[in-house]
């Protein structure tokens, strides 16, 4: 056992990093690649009941400090995705990210994949989902609670709930998710949403016009969300938003995250980002004499 090992809702992880949902997570192959590259766990691209092409291109565009994206939750649907889940090499825990339009849809998908993964992450926070599937849910505390409650009744594996920062009060949503039975909270999904307009043509560049902001630019907001929720909610927090190096990971742990997810920065650093971060983290803990990741969690509150 190394000093990086952690336990999250009973799930053993060899280190506190995960591949974030929707970044290279559409196939078993790329999820396995993330695992081979060092990720302590992998989260799939969010999938729903039926195949979804998502939005037409352009679906991503870079901005200062990150990207805005409106992929639109493209995925081959739960049945096709089960084939992918079956091919996961299982070297690290796998978390299935789900989306749906209502409690029944969420529970249906959850039940179908329960046997193939170690935990579920409910995506109620995509800022550009079609047909009320995304943050329309996560911005409504009661609807969020209803969905979490429904999924919790349907499955036995841990259920994480991924929250949107695009609300007046994220603590309120977090409390509702916790009360409905969430085992952990993932924070944050992409922010805004944001828009980028082309100067020459005056056109919004994304086909969907606006998309969620992710990358280093959103890190301060993610850190604050984790910090605030840590103070009022007693379930583990999975921190995500703008992580690019091991210092960013430390910041999330200090704020109160038990572990972290990494997404957009893979665009800058490639899959090697996991190895680089783990080296940095282990060196730091070694130098400072920390014996386990848990000792780092919540330090900023002391």
């Amino acid at each position, binding site marked *: 056992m190394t000093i990086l090992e952690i336990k999250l809702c009973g799930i053993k992880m060899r280190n506190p990093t995960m591949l974030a949902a929707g970044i290279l997570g559409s196939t078993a192959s790329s999820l396995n690649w993330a695992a081979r590259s060092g990720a302590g766990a992998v989260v799939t691209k969010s999938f729903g009941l039926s195949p979804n092409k998502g939005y037409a291109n352009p679906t991503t*565009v870079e901005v200062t400090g990150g990207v805005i*994206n409106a992929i639109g939750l493209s995925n081959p649907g739960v049945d096709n995705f089960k084939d992918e889940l079956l091919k996961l090499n299982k070297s690290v825990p796998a978390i299935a990210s789900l989306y749906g339009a209502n409690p029944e849809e969420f529970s249906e998908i959850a039940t179908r994949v329960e046997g193939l993964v170690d935990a579920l992450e409910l995506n109620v926070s995509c800022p550009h989902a079609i047909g009320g599937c995304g943050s329309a849910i996560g911005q409504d505390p009661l609807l969020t609670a209803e969905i979490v409650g429904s999924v919790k009744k349907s499955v036995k594996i841990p259920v994480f709930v991924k929250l949107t920062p695009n609300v007046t009060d994220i603590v309120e949503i977090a409390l509702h998710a916790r009360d409905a039975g969430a085992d952990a909270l993932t924070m944050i999904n992409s922010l805004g949403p944001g828009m980028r307009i082309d100067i020459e043509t005056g056109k919004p560049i994304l086909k969907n016009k606006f998309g969620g902001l992710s990358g280093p630019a959103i890190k301060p907001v993610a850190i604050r969300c984790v910090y605030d929720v840590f103070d009022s909610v007693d379930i583990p927090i999975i921190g995500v938003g703008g992580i690019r190096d091991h210092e960013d990971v430390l910041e999330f742990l200090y704020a109160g995250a038990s572990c972290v997810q990494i997404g957009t920065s893979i665009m800058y650093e490639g899959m090697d980002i996991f190895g680089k971060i783990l080296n940095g983290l282990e060196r730091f803990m070694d130098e400072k004499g920390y014996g386990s990741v848990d000792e780092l969690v919540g330090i900023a509150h002391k």
Partner: protein
Amino acid sequence: MHVPKIVKIKRIIEESPTVKTFIFDWEVKNEIPGQFMMVWNLHDEKPMSISMIDPLKNEIGISIKNIGEFTGQVHELTPGDKLGLRGPYGRGFHIAGSKVLAVGGGIGMAPIVAFSEEASRIGVDVHVVSAASTMNELLFDDRIQRSRSKLLTCTDDGSHGLCGFGTDLAEKAMSEDDYDMIVSCGPEIMMKKLFEMVEKFKIPAQFSLERYMKCGMGLCGQCCVDDLGWRVCVEGPVFWTDELKMITEFGKYKRDSSGVKHSIS
């Protein structure tokens, strides 16, 4: 920054009844044959290989085959019309060896002609196999000849050059000549056959793959290939045979925009 840069179409060359080349002013830095651009027509955005690189005039070109909505729209544009370009993306062809066989099929000739020009320029002896369905779909003959590469043509219907597939002509060339390396772009079944051939002839080779692309910048995972998960937009689109051996889906299937698999035939 991964942001489309709006450029005006400078010239349009009608290469064949279905293919047009669009030329743009573009500050050439280190664009490499085999790399591609994401092309935005203000409605949709799709990957297109760079088919022409002129570092002196600072121009690049892309060659588009009209096969659907997007390519149809672009074909309707005229000089002066605007497109958004971002790139270059991906890993292009590595130029190596002193005698190289370049095999292009159909619109796959786009990166091949750019490769043959670039490689010839630095003194490589390039033989180009250009394959098309019929004579007037043969692409870039003049540019290949001007680049002092040797041109070998074939058509499915025998209307020009050898009657047969590019792989037949390539096999002939490989048995008659000693090549240090092969590069290829074209329909995946053609490349799959060529791949088996170069294994037999034991010649190092690079192949340019096509997969559905959304971001083009290594984020969305839409273009990832089994079993290694590599992103065609970043780790590819050009792969060595060593790498292709680990891309188990090569020649078998590819995924569409929702990620559903479709077999290649």
